[in-house]
């Protein structure tokens, strides 16, 4: 078939397919003008269209899920990394593998993050990363996961940090509505962590439900302060349990919690953390991401352009002070967002009552 032949066939096909069967036969008589080969082509297209079922309507999902599999986790249980002994794989994230380990000196549990080798090929990047990890290591706050050390070993560059016996907010959010007083308590704990880090000059850059944990004792702990820069830890860590949400049926995986300025590729500031934190809180309180949409582009455009509905319109009972606070934190312009210490003070007031 040549391009010209196809053009003629296509034109007649499109016209014919819009007609009912009676009109169609008459139209084909006229349009094909006795050219039986042309008519055969058009009729075979019409027939194929009838039989096509859901052809090309569903994405090739099975195969995408299967893009394979040749990289088993690098470290097996019992292996030593620095002073730590590997026990089991916890998750595989954008930065590398995460293991549960034991500190051989204290016999206490710890979490090891082994950085991907391709991320550590650049000496400058590693240096910057180590500097940030050390800075984050100086943070001592009950609601921030403690970083013990950042070193090199045979396995590569690794970070050892506090192990939290609990779950991420990602897992909790997938489990249904959180009672308002509980959500309020978690929020203010996390807000104090963020405020303490910002006051120490440390920006998180990747606040999202996967990076906030709730311990079994009920303490909220934020993970990975300052570690997002190397390798772009924007991606959700995929937990070994396989937690992943589906929003609107089309976007599996995680919706972005990025602020508009990060989406534009600009530098992160503490105000970017405030925006991301507000997106997470919005979801915690209402069960819905503030910028949920049908396609990835919808979501991006919503983050840049749309003012979300008041949280109380999604869930009755949310106090108006919380509505105002969350919407202010989600302001498009950074200067209009409250600082994290101000957010912590306001959340305390909302939770404990005026």
């Amino acid at each position, binding site marked *: 078939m040549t391009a010209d032949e196809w053009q003629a066939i296509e034109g007649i096909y499109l016209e014919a397919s819009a007609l009912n069967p009676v009109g169609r036969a008459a139209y084909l008589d006229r349009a094909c003008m006795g050219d039986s080969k042309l008519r055969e082509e058009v009729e075979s297209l019409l027939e194929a269209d009838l039989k096509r079922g859901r052809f090309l*309507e569903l994405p090739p999902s099975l*195969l995408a899920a299967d*893009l394979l599999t040749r990289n088993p*986790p690098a470290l097996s249980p019992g292996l030593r990394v620095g002073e730590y002994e590997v026990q089991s794989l916890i998750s595989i994230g*954008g930065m590398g593998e995460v293991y549960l380990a034991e500190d051989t000196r204290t016999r206490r549990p710890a979490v090891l993050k082994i950085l991907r080798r391709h991320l550590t090929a650049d000496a400058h990047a590693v240096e910057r990363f180590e500097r940030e990890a050390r800075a984050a290591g100086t943070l001592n706050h009950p609601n921030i996961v403690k970083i013990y050390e950042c070193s090199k070993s045979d396995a590569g560059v690794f970070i050892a940090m506090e192990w939290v016996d609990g779950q991420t907010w990602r897992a909790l959010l997938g489990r249904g509505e959180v009672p308002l007083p509980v959500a309020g308590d978690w929020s203010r704990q996390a807000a104090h962590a963020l405020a303490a880090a910002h006051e120490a000059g440390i920006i998180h850059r990747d606040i999202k439900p996967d990076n906030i944990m709730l311990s079994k004792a009920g303490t909220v702990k934020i993970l990975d302060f300052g570690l997002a820069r190397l390798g772009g830890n924007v991606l959700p860590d995929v937990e070994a349990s396989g937690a992943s949400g589906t929003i609107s049926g089309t976007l599996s995986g995680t919706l972005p919690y*990025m602020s508009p300025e990060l989406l534009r590729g600009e530098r992160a500031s503490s105000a970017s953390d405030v925006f991301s934190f507000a997106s997470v809180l919005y979801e915690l309180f209402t069960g819905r991401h503030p910028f949920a949409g049908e396609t990835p*582009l919808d979501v991006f455009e919503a983050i840049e352009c749309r003012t979300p509905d008041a949280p109380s319109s999604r869930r009755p009972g949310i106090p108006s002070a919380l509505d105002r606070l969350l919407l202010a934190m989600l302001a498009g312009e950074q200067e209009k967002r409250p600082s994290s210490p101000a957010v912590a003070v306001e959340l305390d007031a909302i939770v404990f009552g005026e």
Partner: protein
Amino acid sequence: MPLVYGELHRIARRCWISQPAGHTLQPTALIHEAYLKLVNQGQQSFQSRRHFFAVASMAMRQVLVNHAEASLTEKRGGGKETISLEDIDPALRQEAREVLSLHEALKELERIDPRKSRVVELRYFGGLSIEETAAALGVSTVTVTRDFQAARAWLARELGAGDAPAP
């Protein structure tokens, strides 16, 4: 393009490793993640977001085709250490074949009507909506709708879709 390709591949692999068997992952979600990652790394070489999705659709097609080829070849060669696709899931094997036939048919369509081939690439491999596809190609939504309809009928005929489960 190599950047996007590599990123899509890495994300897909990472997701696969830790997902239970039978879990499905949508290419759209992969592309979306790749975008966020590249933005975060300051890889702003794309003129616009729409341009990125256009490139990513092409990359996704390539990722899927390469993988389908690799897995079917491996099967014939009797893969040793790795698990062959056949052992994993017959549906996957079927889908691998369908992706390859679609890829071949699209090449033929590209010869006689390049724009329609792009429309299918963006809509099917990239998961873009009609409006997004129109914006990416700089044509009207009416054109995209008509292109997609005609391309789908043509491809369905070429591939005998409907006789077998649709890809």
